[in-house]
């Protein structure tokens, strides 16, 4: 993403909008500038801000007059007045940033928007996680910190040593050159993204070990990791995971419940 210096009036509205804080006003030129290495191409600034399409020269003049008289003007905080935010054409490997950061871009490997994962949201139809199994979602960079694929690889290689099964229908797995070792393709290791989800599956009995492993690994990465764990309920709607998590002292306050109302309706 780029901010056009011809159009930018340095109103500062876009600075706090950026989820990873990649925009600042450059004092040398008096314009907002995007830090290219920090930007994850999430399009929050371009898509999320409302637009006024005003003439930049007119706006700058008004702002200079207001500044001279020390007038404080409270513009609407979610508007870019002059269409100054301009998406750039992205090529590989930078385009991977947008795929993993812009929730409106569907992941090619799964066809799903957002983080590109189905997890147990469609388990009533896909039967991906069965009774006695545990599905993990290990999300890097969330909330709002961002992550680089080298941090993701640090965890995936260690998890591969625990003989976990990486979900095949997953955007991160699709970028692995060797899923048996958790190795991600080298040309994207430095690319920064808003978040990426690694999905793995194990037996329920391994849940404490895997959760502890993830927590231990999280100390070695330069990002935040959010963890979710799922399972199939039994015929009465009870889940064995609850007792395991309670025993291990993990929070269990919030989560998702699949109601089992999905049906296969196509051939």
């Amino acid at each position, binding site marked *: 993403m780029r901010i056009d210096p011809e159009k930018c009036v340095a109103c500062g509205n876009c600075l*706090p909008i950026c989820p990873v804080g990649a925009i600042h006003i450059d004092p040398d030129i008096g314009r907002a500038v995007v830090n290219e290495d920090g930007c994850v191409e999430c399009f*929050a600034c371009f898509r*999320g801000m409302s637009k006024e399409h005003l003439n930049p020269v007119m706006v700058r003049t008004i702002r200079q007059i207001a500044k001279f008289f020390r007038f404080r003007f409270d513009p609407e905080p979610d508007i870019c007045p002059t269409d100054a935010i301009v998406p750039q054409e992205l090529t590989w490997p930078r385009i991977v940033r947008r795929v993993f950061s812009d929730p409106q871009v569907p992941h090619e490997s799964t066809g799903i928007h957002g983080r590109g994962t189905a997890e147990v949201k469609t388990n009533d*139809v896909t039967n991906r996680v069965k009774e006695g199994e545990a599905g993990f979602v290990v999300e890097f960079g969330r909330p709002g910190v961002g992550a680089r694929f080298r941090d993701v690889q640090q965890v995936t290689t260690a998890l591969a040593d625990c003989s976990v099964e990486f979900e095949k229908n997953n955007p991160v797995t699709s970028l692995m050159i060797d899923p048996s070792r958790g190795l991600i393709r080298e040309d994207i290791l430095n690319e920064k993204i808003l978040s990426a989800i690694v999905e793995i599956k194990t037996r329920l009995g391994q849940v404490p070990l895997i959760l502890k492993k993830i927590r231990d690994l999280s100390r070695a990465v330069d990002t935040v990791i*959010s963890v979710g764990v799922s399972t199939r*309920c039994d015929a009465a709607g009870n889940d064995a995971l609850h007792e395991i998590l309670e025993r291990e002292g993990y929070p269990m306050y919030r989560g998702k419940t*699949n109601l*089992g109302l999905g049906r296969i309706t196509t051939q």
Partner: protein
Amino acid sequence: MTNTLHRYSEHYAFERTSNPEPIKDDYIVFAMASRGLNDDNLVEKYRSFLQLALKHKPVNMGDATKGGILRPRQDMNPTAHWRRDHSPDPEQVIAGIEGHTTVAAVFDNYEAMRAFVAELECAQLGISINISAPMDDARRCCEETGITRHSVEYSIGFCGRVDKLPDGTTLELSTMCGHGMVSANFARKMIDWVKENRRSPQEAARYLARFCICGVFNIHRAEGIIKQAGTLKR
């Protein structure tokens, strides 16, 4: 997508408070089809979901490919700085459904969520329906509507460089957009603007909601959080 899985509250605090208040105003029901399995007549199914939701007065609802009931505008004019239209447009969400997406409805009370789920059970749309909520409330809802839980997913919280995270109140606001589109810095700015009496909590919540691309941002809950933070009660 773990869109709504990790909505922050005191229940995840790293040194947990001994008795955090239960969350009683944040319930999301969402629907998702699977390619090649139940995506026939998808537009009709998703629109039916949203139309049923509308009967129960959701505080937000959305289509993950387009947005919620409050969206950014491409046609602002300068009068907006004095008179901004914050009217929600749920019909835009329904009319905009075109195909594969996830649709969601957010409720600020348990009874509305339960009534909606009961209607969904009767409607038998055939697409996967999930509740994102405190687990006990989701379980109770299933029991009261005669639904047997199929699968569950627990949010375990955050680990790693948690020192990079903002304060809890800011997190409560920014994590309401699971895709990270509501920036923590913008949430903090809105809290500060309310403290300075530059905007009302209602306006501040609506500015934030426009950035949430899938409409799961709980506008009503955000108002309450911002109001409390703005008056130093949080």
